[in-house]
């Protein structure tokens, strides 16, 4: 199987998952107590408004017609109209998406950059102080609720030292990076003061998780027969570690990352809630408390599609690292 075919196969599975996500989201409104209109319409809507909404949405049509209609709408980028916020759902959702992506990417970067060297260091200095430090960190890291960690960071760095911002987003990362490129350091630093605490909050669990996986994977690989053979043929230890052991360690790490993507998105939701980060997470929470059902549906679909897309990237990475996946 070639790489292209492998990715095509995964892509098709992804399309199926997206379809499933859409269907579940569509059906969710029928497993809620009360009739759909009471969920979709504002709470204080008059019976006449309700009637109008029901007619406009075609809620009195057969289920499959509504379903097909919904699917066709989605394909055209139409997630429905929110009578509560008086905007189209897709406009709201896509306005929020970049902020969440920015946060997730920042957190992932922090996690990957810190955790892999830490895990390697921990494994190659087994039972030494750095190893104890790293294992303790990863144990505490995977056991700490990130919202509490966020609050503790706020307590420490904002309330006590007043260094970082604790709420909001400031400018976008694109503008921050262009400011950095043009040497406008102040702007860049101000961006950093906004994103640092949320990124640490969201990234800690993953840093801890990947450190743990890297450490145990490295220990396995370093004790394996091929590593011994690689040493025996005279390769310097650095090559043995990084070119051979680390590469194979990363295969399961990447797999787990793919599996845990949902955790990353869920973590982003709550991190956004802690730092009033204007992303999808706050939108999800607000739309639930505000009963903005259409926006919630749109958010869920975007999250599901994002999950599938990122997983495709993870699959490609996995295939790149492990030739056994595609060469047969």
């Amino acid at each position, binding site marked *: 199987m070639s790489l292209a075919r492998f990715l095509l196969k995964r892509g098709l599975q992804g399309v199926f998952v997206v379809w499933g996500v859409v269907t579940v989201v569509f059906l969710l409104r029928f497993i809620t107590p009360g009739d759909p209109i009471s969920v979709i319409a504002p709470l204080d809507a008059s019976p006449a408004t309700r009637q109008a909404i029901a007619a406009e949405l075609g809620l009195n049509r057969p289920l499959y017609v509504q379903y097909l209609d919904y699917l066709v709408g989605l394909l055209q980028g139409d997630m429905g109209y929110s009578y509560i916020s008086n905007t189209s759902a897709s406009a709201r959702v896509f306005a929020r998406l970049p902020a969440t992506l920015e946060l997730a990417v920042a957190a992932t970067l922090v996690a990957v950059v810190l955790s892999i*060297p830490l895990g*390697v260091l921990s494994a190659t200095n087994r039972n030494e102080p750095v190893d104890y430090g790293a294992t303790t960190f990863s144990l505490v890291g995977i056991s700490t609720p990130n919202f509490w960690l966020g609050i503790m960071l706020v307590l420490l760095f904002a309330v006590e030292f007043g260094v970082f911002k604790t709420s909001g987003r400031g400018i976008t990362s694109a503008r921050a990076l262009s400011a950095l490129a043009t040497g406008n350091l102040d702007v860049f630093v101000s961006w950093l003061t906004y994103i640092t605490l949320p990124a640490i909050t969201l990234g800690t669990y993953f840093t801890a998780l990947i450190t743990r996986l890297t450490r145990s994977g490295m220990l396995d690989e370093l*004790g*394996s*027969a*091929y590593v*011994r*053979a*690689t*040493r*025996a*043929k*005279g*390769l*310097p*230890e*650095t*090559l043995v570690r*990084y*070119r*051979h052991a*680390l*590469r*194979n360690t990363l*295969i399961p790490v990447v797999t787990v990352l793919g599996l845990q993507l949902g955790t990353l998105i869920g973590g982003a939701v709550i991190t956004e809630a802690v730092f009033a980060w204007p992303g999808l997470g706050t939108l999800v929470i607000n739309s639930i408390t505000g009963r903005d059902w259409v926006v919630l549906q749109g958010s869920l679909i975007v999250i599901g599609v994002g999950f599938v897309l990122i997983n495709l990237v993870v699959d490609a990475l996995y295939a790149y*690292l*492990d*030739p*056994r996946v595609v*060469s*047969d």
Partner: protein
Amino acid sequence: MSDSQRDVLRVRDLSTRFFTEEGQVNAVEGVSFDVRDGEVYGIVGESGSGKSVTALSVIDLVASPGKITSGEVWYRNPDLAEEFRAERPDAVRDEFVDLRRLPKGVRRSLRGPGFSTVFQDPMSSLNPSLTVGEQIAEAVEVQRRARANPRSTRSRTQGYGLGKFLVDSLVPGRDYTGEESHERAIELLDQVGIPDPAQRAQEYPHQFSGGMLQRAMIAQALAGEPDVLIADEPTTALDVTIQAQILNLLRDLQQEEDMSVVLITHDLGVIARMCSRVGVMYAGQMVERGSLSDVFDDPVHPYTQGLLGSIPDLENPAPRLQPIEGNVPSLLDSEMGGRCYFADRCPKAMESCLHPIEMHDADAGSDEHEARCVLTETDYRPEEALPEGYFDGGDGDGGGGGRETDGSDPEAREEEVRADD
């Protein structure tokens, strides 16, 4: 001494211990042997006898919790001898250097040009995620770089670190190995009889059969043009028909390259077919050594006799060690008394066997035939034989052997096997 009679390797009194949670395991205890230029030297023993650990100890690849605790490994290398004669006089004797006394970097730089190793299981001895050609090319490349800049290679990374790994991963096409090394790798694959080597070089280990992989491993071992090739059970994991092919290949290559081979196996047939001289190991010690005919035609040690007793015909394709009654001792230090380690299984054990036994000249005919047994000095006297069940009680007496732990406790067995891996 004629040229072919010169030693290339003299191992003296080598001891390796494993410091496990169950206690100290004496995997190798005071092992000595010589390997000559251009010969195949055989080391034979049951699994758990310490023969593989002996090989790993020679190339300094014993992994934690194992540790070489004493001994010398003299390796003939006039250049190194010259280089260290002034600096480390104790590490140099004539043309020989003691690897154990040389700096770690120097010792490691000898992996490849000094010693190469072919391991038991080719399936797990190659990295599954790099092509076979790439892995052989690495072995070539590391020596090329070493020759180009001998000083910096000994201890350094050859310019390869985490940063470079990341760059290599992100930017395809950049790599450690060069074009020349790849070409050489294909030549080597051709030399070990892999058809269509250029194509196969680009394949991954899982696309190879076991026999082909072992050929590739041998090609990789040849890449450094070693003086001594250590083959640790090279055919055990393979089908019987493939075994013969690999052995023939090893023999041909040994003659072509004029290298020395240390062949480690539990298979007496392999020894008989390949080796000129042989050492028999039991419980971490070498119990008998000599030329092939000394040991096979005229064994002195009751253990060797027991092993050979099972083989009606040395040409038999797959003779195995005869299961001698009793078990291999656990090698736990606390359970090894100051006595002949074989005494609890020896049909001729006597009272004089209950103290440490040295290597003795075994017979007048050959000056290199030695055995670790009182029978080299005295004849068996039935009246001094140890009473039946002497070792069964485990009542202290410096004996006890391994019987109480063996068989009853699977963990103890595992530990023992691991010590030999």
